[in-house]
Each structure stands twice: as C-alpha cells, then as structure tokens.
C-alpha cells in the first residue's frame, strides 16, 4: 500500500523474469538531461555525465546529452561543455517557449525526444527543476522512475540497478524498472563525484525542433526573482564546511561555527534540529533532507551523526568530529575525532588556524 519500496514487494517480484516487450528492445543509449538555465549548466548535470559515461561504457552504448533552452547561439557553450564532460552526442532543442523552465513545454519536448530516439536510461538531477520534470515525463511515458539515487550500476542482465535510501535513510534499497523503457533515475547534486573535463573533446550534435507555440502553453512566467543571497549559501559546492548540531546547546553558539568557517574561507551549516528550532535557515541543513555536501574538509561540532545526517556528508574527503560522547555514532564514519566540549574547542581551533595562516602569510 505504501509508496515506499517495501521488503515484501522485493520478495514477491524480485525473482520475476525480465523478458522485455518487443517494442522496447530498440531502446538504446544512456541519456543525461542537461539542466541549463540562465546561461549555465547546473553542475549536477556534469556529475551525471561522469556517472552516465560509466554506465554507457559498461553497456557498450553512447552517452547522450539533451539540452533545452531559448536561444540556440547561447547554448553552444553548453553543448561543448557536455562533450568535454563525456557526451558523445547532444540533442539540442532551442525554442523561445523554452527560455524559462516550465513544466508543460519541457515535458512535451522531453517525451517527444524519447519517443523519437528511444533511450534505455535517462538520468536527471534531483533538483527542483529535475524533480518537477522527471515525475511528469515518467508518468507521461508510463515508465519507472527512481528518485534520489546514491548509486547506479548495470546488472548482469544489462538493466539499471538504482540504489537509494529508504525508510528515512535507515536502509538502502536497489530498484529496477522491469518491462518498461526508458529506465529513469534522479540523483541529488554532489552525490556523485565531479568527473574530469577533457578540453577539446568533441562529439556530435542533433538539432530537434520543439514544435511549440506560446499560445498553446497555459502557464505563464510573470516574473523571476533571483535569490538575493543565492551566491552566499553554496554549501553543496564548498571545499570546507563547518557545521553545528544540538550539542552547541544555544543558537548564539552557532557563531562559533560561523567564525571558524570564515577563517577557513568555507561555508557553514548544521543538523536538521537547528532548522526545526529556527536557529538557522533551511538552506543550511546538511543531510538526507537537506544538502548533500562533498567538501575536502568537514568539521562537525556537537552532531551525533544520525544516519540521515551521515548520508549527506559521507562524500567528504576528511571528516573531523567534535563530540563530548566518545560513543557518538559520528565517530563510526569520521576520520578524526576529538572527544571534548565543542563550545570550548571551536574558538581554540579558530584561533589556532588564524595564527598559522597569518604567520605563514607573512612568511610567503
């Protein structure tokens, strides 16, 4: 009954044979929906090209990007970028109706592309845009869609095995799309590593006509109000992140986290209870229902390390945890631990960093 994947479902259908209906057998190649807005590709699309490349190589097929936008000339940079990040071919759909993202025209174009060129796999970023689009496209095509995957692989039978957290992150499950094509999946930003860029790598491009008329599209964008502080909170892409949890005991002590982040030129955030208590804005929440981060250094102060927090930070290169409880779960996955009072230790760490940085700056 639940829409959550449940173990009983696994038991009763996991062994089912996957004889793909004849009409789907021609579905081939791995696609990445290239999220392109305001003249830029969302980094999650590049991360997906990296992941899609691996899937395509395993299957021995092509990696293909699909990019939609309003102005063809302006989109050329995006096409080149997609090639350089691994796409063999890019489908470009340029039409004035696609200038700003709207569900209806984007859904129509994507379903049209799929029906024309028949991909076996489509990956989209689990962003606000990607989730809005993926759900509509999958329902229109009546195919399977797995949200917020943390791992993608090709199984022995050549189908997509999409792994995602389930039951509030306490378990993982691997989901397959049986008997339908394409197999669709979304992945949140920063869950996959950013692939390298091969400058000068070239691919092919196919222009596809949108066949849309503005009068035919019911939803109108009256205004777009850019976030005032959108350049400020860049948690997901920060190299250094300092975060606080309930162990900080009062909202004032978040200042200690901010001060350290500032000295390191990094970003700051926190665990979910801090948002629920109104200590900080939701934009700064780290974890399964907040931001996934992948910094070089993650410093967690007074955070217990619940599974929902853990899944959002595990991609960090080095995790340093400060916690008064030596048995806190965060020490199970942190690289370095300091069993002490974070309220006293954070200022000391800030001072020590500041000292070292200024001494060495003078020396150089």
């Amino acid at each position: 009954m639940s829409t959550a994947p449940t173990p009983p479902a696994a038991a009763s259908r996991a062994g089912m044979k996957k004889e793909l209906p004849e009409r789907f057998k021609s579905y081939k190649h791995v696609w990445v929906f290239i999220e392109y807005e305001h003249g830029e590709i969302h980094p999650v699309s590049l991360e997906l090209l990296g992941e899609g490349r691996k899937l395509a190589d395993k299957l021995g097929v092509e990696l293909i990007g699909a990019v939609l936008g309003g102005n063809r000339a302006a989109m050329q940079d995006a096409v080149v970028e997609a090639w350089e990040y691994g796409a063999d071919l890019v489908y470009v759909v340029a039409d004035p109706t696609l200038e700003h993202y709207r569900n209806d025209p984007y859904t129509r174009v994507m379903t049209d592309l799929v029906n024309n060129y028949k991909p076996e796999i489509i990956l989209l970023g689990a962003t606000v845009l990607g989730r809005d689009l993926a759900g509509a496209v999958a329902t229109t095509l009546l195919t399977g869609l797995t949200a917020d995957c943390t791992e993608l692989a090709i199984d022995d039978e050549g189908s997509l095995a999409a792994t995602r957290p389930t039951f509030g992150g306490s378990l993982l499950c691997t989901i397959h799309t049986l008997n339908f094509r394409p197999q669709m999946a979304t992945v949140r930003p920063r869950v996959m590593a950013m692939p390298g860029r091969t400058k000068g790598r070239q691919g092919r491009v196919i222009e596809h006509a949108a066949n849309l008329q503005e009068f035919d599209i019911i939803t109108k964008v009256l205004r777009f109000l850019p976030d005032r502080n959108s350049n400020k909170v860049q948690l997901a892409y920060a190299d250094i992140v300092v975060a606080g949890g309930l162990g900080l005991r009062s909202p004032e002590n978040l200042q200690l986290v901010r001060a350290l982040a500032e000295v390191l030129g990094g970003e700051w955030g926190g665990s979910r209870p801090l948002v629920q208590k109104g200590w900080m804005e939701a934009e700064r929440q780290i974890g399964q229902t907040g931001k996934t981060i992948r910094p070089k250094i993650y410093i967690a102060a007074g955070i217990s390390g619940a599974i929902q927090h853990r899944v959002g930070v595990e991609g960090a290169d080095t995790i340093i945890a400060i916690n008064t409880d030596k048995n806190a779960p965060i020490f199970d996955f942190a690289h370095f631990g300091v069993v002490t009072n974070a309220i006293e230790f954070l200022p000391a760490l800030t001072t020590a960093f500041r000292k070292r940085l200024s001494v060495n700056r003078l020396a150089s």
Partner: protein
Amino acid sequence: MHIVVCIKQVPDSAQIRVHPVTNTIMRQGVPTIINPYDLFALEEALRLRDWLGGEVTVLTMGPPMAEESLRKALGIGADRGVLLTDRFFAGSDTLATSYALAQAVRKIGETWGIPEIVFTGKQTIDGDTAQVGPGIARRLALQQLTYVAAVQEVDLENKTITVLRRAEGGVQELKTAIPALITMLEGTNEVRRGTIADVLRGARAELVVWNAQTAGITDVSNCGLRGSPTVVKRVFAPKPRATKAVQIEVGDRDMGTIAEDVIARLYAVQPALEAALLRTAAAY
C-alpha cells in the same frame, strides 16, 4: 470552490527500528502521523476555502487504519474525508499510486463537484520521491505547480491562479489556469490547530470509504504491484566504514594544544590544504 488535498499516513520514521539481523522494518508499535509536508498543503487549502468559500476534501490511499489520518485532518478543519483502500493497491510504486489517486480525484469530482485545485505535499517522509504530485497532475491533465511557496491570487471567474514557486536560484511568479495541481513547499504557512468542534466532528464523522471498484477503477492491472514498473530487488543496511575515527588525544591538554594537533593531522592527510587555505581563506 472545491479543493482536494492528498495526504498520506506515514510511520513516524524517527522511531523506525530496523531488525539488526534480518534487516527488515519492525513496524509493530511504530506510531503513525500525517506526512508532515502534507499539513502545509492542508493549511493552504483551508485558508483558500476560508477566503473564497467552498469545501476541502481530504483523500488518502492506505490500509483501513489510514482513516485515523483523515479524522485528524477533519479535526484540523477539512470538510470531508475519503479513504481509498483495497488489497489491489498493495505494493504500488509512485506510478501506480498516482493512477489510483487520480482516479479517486476524478470520482470525487463527479460526486461533489470538480475541484479547482488539487494539493499534495512536497514529498513524503517514507517514500520521499516527490513524484506522486506530478504523477496525478499528468494523469488528470492539470497544470502542474510544484514547490509552491504562496498562492497569491485565485480568480474563480476567469479561472486563473497565480502562485510563487520555488525554482532553481530564485522564485518564479507563475500564472496558469485552474484546475491545477499544487505541491506545497514546507514551512510556508503555520498549520492551525482545529477548533474543539472540528476535533469532535473529526472523531465522529462518517468517512467515505472506496475500494477500487467503487472508486471507478475498472482496470486494476494499473494498480498495486502489477501496475508498478519499478520493483525493489534488494534491501540492505548501509556498509559500516571499516575503520573508526582516529581519536586525537585530549587528556588534560589545553584546547590550544589539541587544536594545533588537529591542524597538524589535517595538513598531514591533505598536503595541499595549507597552500589552498593561504590562497582562499579570509585575510587576517
């Protein structure tokens, strides 16, 4: 005006326990709640009704015990509760769920008047996909407005609606035609407490209970496991990291010394770090 709000009863997942050996969910005794995100949708629907007049119907698909969540919603102020329950729905993924719910919304429309707005929450805390809302919108050919932060205007005469929608990097002001489907962003309103009269009414009210057939679903092959293109092949616990954290000695050393120690360890594992910090960190 008629508004339908889709709510789901979910386990209060903070309290979910996983059996350490079998890796299965231990559901016994886990309390259930209305999916917290759905409450923002319900509140927004109630506000619109209070403002423009009309009725709010809450719809849930689930086991018979999901009627509790409907009673709670009535207790908050909804006018009517519809429970969609049938063994045919068991094992539905989001595609099958959106099919059943869309059919039920259609039937609700035939019975009590076509809804101008269908609300869902942003996502559930158990399924957590944010797919069911768009799924219902597509199946009913409704305009799809996801991540709505505020409903600014409803013009019943010209049949239009204007909303603010959270988009990537900013907020879109969108105007579209009703009927529309809105998935409501969390934290955008303050969910009311029902009046005593509402709570009493909620406890006593006759709920509308439909199975697949009475909801007008003739083709049950679109429902439940059979109607779900996705299947769960494996459920497993996350791999524990092989090694635990290296503990930095604390003892009775002063904080400054421990901090120096932490920095030294950090520079040792990330040799390029110091140079990078000197380039990018704030100058002091």
